[in-house]
């Protein structure tokens, strides 16, 4: 394989891992617990910026090329761990503002507004993360530990991303298919009922908000260490919508489905548009990606709102009694799949 092909495949691999981790994080919030997190992208972005400024040396060494805060030049796992912490803390703060007492439709609104505030502030305050131009030339602290050819280094990092994805997959599995996961689904289905049973619905929403923030931070850190750059253009508020589409197309609440949805929507659509047999203006290509993403959402919500791989409905027979009757035929499939 030529070096270019290898780089292409490695890039695809990293993007898929990053998108899968991020979509799982959103699925935990939106798919499993029913929290409409419209500012999801800012947690990924916070992770990316944190990892970048922890990996880079002090801004003064860049000879005026770019300016940013911190610049600690920390060794391998620290920038990624730092990104996860910052993602989680930011999620905690946003969650405290939006989840605690707002009406549910205002929650989504406030999160949109928070997302716009974040982009505006980062773009306007050039001293923070180099403003609209964004941070670039981020060195990958993991790769610099390995004394090997550039090719090998890249593949080691891809392997690390895959390992991260597998670990996150196990954590998600443990969370979603446990008694804790049942409470989360109950919060989604009927938060009053679960409160009547003595669980605090808001506390569970807050918890998944923070867990999702940590995972989003991880995904951003992995991505920025690989591509080496991060700018406000890449995380305008509609970007969150790509992950929503991935979750809806894959199947809300289904781990395998969301992983496939993330690969198809986050990476596949873009690749498909790039390989169109007609030559298009670059800006038209970007527009076409958005149009396809939007159309995918509408199509799935109309034809198959439960996604490609629907969440399995579980029934729990009460000991000593007959199995509960099966009402699933009588419920409208749309209502059942999309009743947040």
């Amino acid at each position, binding site marked *: 394989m030529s070096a270019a092909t290898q780089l292409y495949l490695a890039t695809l691999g990293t993007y898929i891992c990053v998108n899968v981790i991020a979509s799982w994080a959103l699925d935990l919030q939106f798919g499993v617990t029913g929290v409409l997190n419209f500012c999801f992208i800012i947690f990924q972005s916070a992770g990316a910026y944190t990892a970048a400024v922890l990996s880079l040396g002090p801004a003064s060494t860049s000879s005026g090329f770019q300016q940013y805060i911190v610049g600690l030049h920390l060794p391998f796992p620290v920038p990624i761990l730092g990104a996860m912490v910052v993602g989680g803390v930011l999620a905690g703060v946003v969650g405290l503002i939006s989840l605690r007492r707002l009406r549910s439709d*205002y929650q989504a*609104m406030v999160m949109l507004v928070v997302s716009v505030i974040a982009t505006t502030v980062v773009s306007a305050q050039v001293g923070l993360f180099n403003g609209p131009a964004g941070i670039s030339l981020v060195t990958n602290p993991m790769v610099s530990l390995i004394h090997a050819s550039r090719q090998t280094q890249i593949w080691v990092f891809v392997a690390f991303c895959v390992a991260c994805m597998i670990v996150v997959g196990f954590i998600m599995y443990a969370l979603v298919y446990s008694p804790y996961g049942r409470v989360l689904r109950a919060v989604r289905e009927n938060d009053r009922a679960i409160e009547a049973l003595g669980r605090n619905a808001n506390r569970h929403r807050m918890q998944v908000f923070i867990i999702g923030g940590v995972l989003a931070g991880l995904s951003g850190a992995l991505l920025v260490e690989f591509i080496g750059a991060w700018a406000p253009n890449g995380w305008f508020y509609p970007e969150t919508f790509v992950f929503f589409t991935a979750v809806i197309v894959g199947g809300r609440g289904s781990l395998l489905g969301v992983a496939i949805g993330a690969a198809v929507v986050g990476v596949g659509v873009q690749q498909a548009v790039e390989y169109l047999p007609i030559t298009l203006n670059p800006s038209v290509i970007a527009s076409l990606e958005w149009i396809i993403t939007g159309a995918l959402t509408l199509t799935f919500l109309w034809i198959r709102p439960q996604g490609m791989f629907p969440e399995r409905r579980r029934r729990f027979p009460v000991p000593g009694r007959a199995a509960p009757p099966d009402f699933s035929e009588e419920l409208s499939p749309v209502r059942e799949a999309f009743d947040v």
Partner: protein
Amino acid sequence: MSEFASAIGFGIVTAAILAVSSVGFTLQFSVTNVFNLSYGSVMTATGFIAYGLNNAGLNIWSSMAIAALGGGVISVLMNWLIFSRFIRHGLSRFGMVIVTIATGLICDNTIQAVVGPSFYSYNVPLERVHDIGGMLLTTQELIVIAIAIVLMTLTHVGLKYTRLGTAMRGLSVNSSLARASGVPTRRVVAAAWFASGVMAGIGAVALFLDTGAFGATTGSSFLIIVIAAAVLGGVGSAEGAVVGALVVGISTEIAAAYWNAELKNVVAFLILIVVLLVRPQGIFSQLSSERTAVG
């Protein structure tokens, strides 16, 4: 002092534009309960219709009027082709939010694919500047303020004293009771979408006149500020939207004059978040949160 007066002047112009746009947004929301995040795309589309007419030689105010009617038609079509079908398909309110975002993205990017990434501006003659108590306003800005006042009065009177307005208010309070009392729901809903599209159109042309240049995403960027004004007043309340527009418009322009022009909208957003924390239903709203969408 004159700096303050001129900031207030700019604030009132911004508030006039915002008031028209957010009353359109909130009127449609209160009748149909669809949180329409594609409203910004309707604004952009009408802005470009007006651009086409203006380029063809029509003056800007006639272009605005025709484009506004076009906005009403686009808005009704969007509801008829997409939103109402999804509602009758049984999608929940939160599913509808995602549907409107998807629709907005499709519209914005279709416009972007056609007009490209460049910016456009209307062809308007140079205006005389009037000094009104230190506020420096052009004739054009005075006309925008006048249009806003007329539209707000019409909305208020229309909602309060006409049969259609009564039907709209009835639908917004209790849609099933309104339907049971013989309100022709679909026609009233269509009227609400039409009115909202018209206001989107007028707001858009006024906005694009004010900002000078506009592109395929200008409407959707402005939408967040429109929503901030609407939510600040209380979503679903027309008077609230006016108050919200004044608060947002004047505070952003004062922030731009005295603090940082790039961060002026952040001030409005922070005010919104603080108000929502203190009074989660907005300043004026009396809507319950358990309503379902009507299409």
